């Protein structure tokens, strides 16, 4: 098996391993930008098993694999596959793992990636399981912070849906390895569940954006989904106060960076896109070199 075995949860990686991947990702940037060619994964095949819709994650894995000379097979439409005929996930994984050198999986049920790994002969990479883990997103988030700001003495606000966002859950765990100050900014009904704070050492507190905007280096936004609210009116009333535009950033530090796992709906006004704070599209790009680093380590 490869250096990292499977990549199921960010907890599977030590701080040194995380820093190693971030460093390696940097060396892949020229390949991710298409400025250079690499054949290190030539004759290697990756399977994307997506039981839930995804654009960025699936495409960036595909871009990363192909950028390193490898190839990708996709299982996207659940209806079109044998899963719709009643095959278990265990069987699907057992079969597909015999075709390929690694599997990327996204599934709506929590714990699926760990279960898939038990049934796979090749490394499994978790690309999100329910409200659970999404470790490659976390690694690209850390990479973005490290590149565009700094992981040292970071003051970060996590804003929006902190209850259901798996991106946030994974990121908090990883950030605490770097002694951050973390502010949680969310509606009461979407507060971070207590279980995610258990066993986490760190300076974590609840705040409103106005109180801390002049202090933070990183503002990490997430989407507040309509379906989390009992009715449209409640959604509009609550979600409205978790949106930002250029006015909300009047008192922000000059070096503040704004991140978002995307897709955004209207929580970041388009007027913010042109400011030097906006790093969310760059963040999406960093998904490619980071996933190149992960694939190059995991596929033999």
């Amino acid at each position, binding site marked *: 098996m490869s250096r990292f075995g499977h990549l199921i949860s960010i907890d599977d990686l030590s701080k040194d391993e995380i820093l190693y991947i971030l460093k390696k990702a940097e060396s892949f940037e020229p390949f991710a930008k298409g400025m250079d060619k690499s054949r290190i994964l030539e004759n290697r095949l990756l399977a994307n098993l997506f039981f839930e819709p995804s654009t960025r994650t699936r495409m960036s894995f595909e871009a990363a694999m192909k950028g390193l000379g490898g190839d990708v097979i996709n299982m996207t439409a659940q209806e079109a596959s044998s899963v719709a005929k009643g095959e278990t996930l265990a069987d699907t994984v057992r079969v597909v793992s015999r075709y390929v050198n690694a599997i990327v999986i996204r599934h709506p049920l*929590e*714990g699926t990636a760990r279960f898939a790994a038990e049934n796979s002969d090749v490394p499994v990479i978790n690309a999100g399981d329910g409200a659970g883990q999404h470790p490659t997103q976390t690694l690209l988030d850390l990479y973005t912070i490290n590149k565009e700001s700094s992981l040292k003495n970071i003051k970060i606000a996590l804003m929006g849906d902190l209850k259901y966002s798996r991106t946030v859950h994974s990121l908090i765990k990883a950030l605490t390895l770097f002694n951050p100050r973390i502010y949680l900014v969310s509606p009461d009904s979407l507060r971070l569940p207590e279980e995610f704070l258990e066993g986490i050492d760190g300076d974590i507190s609840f705040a409103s954006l106005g109180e801390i905007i002049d202090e933070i280096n990183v503002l990490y936004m997430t989407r507040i989904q309509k379906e989390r609210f009992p009715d449209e009116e409640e959604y509009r009333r609550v979600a409205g106060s978790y949106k930002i535009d250029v006015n909300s950033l009047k008192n922000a530090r000059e070096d503040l960076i704004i991140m978002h796992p995307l897709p955004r709906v209207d929580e970041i006004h388009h007027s913010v896109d042109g400011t030097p704070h906006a790093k969310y599209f760059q963040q999406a790009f960093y998904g490619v070199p980071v996933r190149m680093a992960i694939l190059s380590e995991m596929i033999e």
Partner: protein
Amino acid sequence: MGEQLTITKIKEGTVIDHIDSGKAVLVLRIIGIDHQSTEPVSMAMNVPSKKMGKKDIVKVEGKFISAEELNKISLIAPKATINLIKDFEIQKKFRVNLPEVIEGILTCPNRNCITNSREPITRRFYITLEENQVVAKCYYCNRKIVDIDRYVI
């Protein structure tokens, strides 16, 4: 000795004593004894106890239950003691120990957990003590169970 008044001695088998009162039925379920089992079983509930106020007792005749199996009881009855009986005498006496991992007994309360799907999967939980309370954590989705009684299969 209230228990002698309640249930007679057994010649050979396993006696599970000091079960938290009201949990005897759950104990039987955990060690897999039901109407399909052949061993005679006697059970006493709410027996007066000096240490516990009241307790339950279970006696399984003609069967020596393994320590591994018995340790599962500690999930719901951490004070339980085991007496293995031969010729009406106690051959061995021990307390149950909390296992580190438990398989198959509990169901995950998270409806969105892969273990609650139709996949061929063995439910597995890590067991720990937190502030004197037994806590089970799902190996697959990390959900914690504190009120364990409710999730025994």
